[in-house]
């Protein structure tokens, strides 16, 4: 179970029908305080629709949402006061500069004026603060969106595909930015993506949604465990070592570039290493190698190679 910390986002049978189709189907999310929750799913899985319901932008067809232990239908404003969000592509007023954009939101939030410079600094837009936003690159707009989300000092930050459409450098930058956030301010983050690799390095928990249904929800380690680890051996003359290991009945594999052993306990590995050493092989490395999480993710969501 995962209830080591207080659950601050909980949905119960969350369902949304749109145009006669069930787009989100009986989803039970559970996000604990301080989690960085990776909300994953292929395109069209229902991530944005779920997030819209969490933010009160869309009404669930059925099911309940509790955030900070409050019902979104009854206490939407109280909840939203502690939530910052960025839904799909960033929203902004192009003719205004970054400071003015933030000011327009600040006036609604009633946050202190000084907060504008703070969030600009966090997303490193201080230098560009006086330029009209329509001239911003997508990455800068995305950062402004995150700054806007941070403006009210939220306890929960909801980011829907914040790296969508960015180049690798931009993706890296946003990722670093997000990773640095909880450490500095203790916020809980819900971040959606259609790529596991994108949230893998920062997420503490993962929820996977496919065709509107939540098919996995647990800590990231559990997902890693499912990725059957292999042990890679770096040795002198790997091909000969492979044959030796096979002859002793170890499940070794040689693919002409690397020598690996599948699922093996500590004693087996110790046996392998001593066998190799006794046979005068030099052992350079014994390391765990994870099957890519991406492949498990693809398997789970049953989506095609196009992803």
């Amino acid at each position, binding site marked *: 179970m995962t209830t080591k910390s207080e659950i601050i986002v909980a949905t119960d049978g969350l369902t949304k029908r749109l145009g006669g189709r069930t787009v989100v189907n009986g989803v039970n999310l559970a996000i604990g305080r301080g989690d960085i929750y990776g909300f994953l799913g292929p395109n069209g899985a229902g991530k944005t629709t779920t997030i*819209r319901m969490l*933010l*009160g*932008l*869309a*009404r669930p067809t059925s099911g309940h949402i509790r955030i900070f232990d409050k019902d979104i239908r009854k206490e939407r*404003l*109280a909840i*939203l*006061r502690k*939530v910052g*969000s960025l*839904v*799909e*592509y960033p*929203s*902004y*007023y*192009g*003719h*205004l500069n970054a400071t*003015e954009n933030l*000011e*327009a*939101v600040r*006036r*609604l*939030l*009633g946050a202190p004026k000084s907060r504008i410079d703070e969030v600009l600094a966090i997303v490193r837009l201080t230098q560009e603060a006086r330029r009209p936003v329509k001239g911003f690159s997508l990455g800068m707009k995305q950062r402004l969106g995150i700054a*806007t989300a941070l403006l*009210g000092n939220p306890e929960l930050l909801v980011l829907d595909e914040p790296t969508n459409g960015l180049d690798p450098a931009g993706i890296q930058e946003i990722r670093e930015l997000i990773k640095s956030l909880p450490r500095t301010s203790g916020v809980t983050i819900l971040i959606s993506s259609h790529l596991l690799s994108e949230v893998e390095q920062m997420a503490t928990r993962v929820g996977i949604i496919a065709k509107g249904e939540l098919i996995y929800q647990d800590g990231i380690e559990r997902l890693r465990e499912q990725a059957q680890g292999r042990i890679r051996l770096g040795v002198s003359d790997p091909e000969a070592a492979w044959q030796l290991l096979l002859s002793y009945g170890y499940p070794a594999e040689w693919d002409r570039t690397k020598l690996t052993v599948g699922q093996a306990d500590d004693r087996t590995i110790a046996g392998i290493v001593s066998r190799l050493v006794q046979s005068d092989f030099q052992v350079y490395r014994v390391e765990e190698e994870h099957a890519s999480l991406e492949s498990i993710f693809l398997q789970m969501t049953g989506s095609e190679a196009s992803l």
Partner: protein
Amino acid sequence: MLLRILSAELLKIRRKLVWLLVLAGPLGVVGLEALAYALRFDYMIRPADSAKMWSDLLSGIGSLALPALLIGLAIVASMTAGIEHQMNAWKMTLALPVKKRHVFAGKFLLTALLLFVSCVLLALFSLVFGLTLGSSLGLHGSVPIGGLLREAFYPYLAAMPFIALQAWLSVTMHNQAVPLTVGIVGMIVSLFAGSRFPDWVPYKWPALLNQWHEPLYSVGAGVALGLVVFLVGMFEFVRKDVK
């Protein structure tokens, strides 16, 4: 809260074309009337006195201002709502801790406020033109302040149902062609409404025509129906999922 929303709305239209429109509308109307006077200045029948001059002037400006108001309100409503539509900012605004009905009210108030500014400017420009005309005709008399204000604000108040309607349509529809078409058709209908339609037809109200010859009836009906349309629009907006 509403004040905060309105101040945010005013910030959002900073450096926007809509301000130019707010200025150009009344300026164009009074300018056109001035042009009409200038063209026939030499052979027109001189008004007998200052009072007659003002009443001719105000009715002339009034008949030009009416279609300008009706088309202007559609454009202004579309522009103020367009600020959110253009960059899909509704989802950002409505995920903030603000009441949805306040957001709707904010857009309506902004539109009404901008049009109000236009009406103030209309009164000012009319005053300036009237004083200039009076002195060039050698007619001196007191300025009919009441008539001036009536000319500027009665049609505005009587047009309240249309301001509310256009605000509602512009806010709820992503494609602004629809509300603009409704606005244009509305203007044309109201141009012909004067003699043909019964008094209860709202398109007749901004012209302040009714069988009792009491403009205030039209004004009262306009404000009342405007409030109803506003409330209906607000409830529909609150109910709907955000695009």
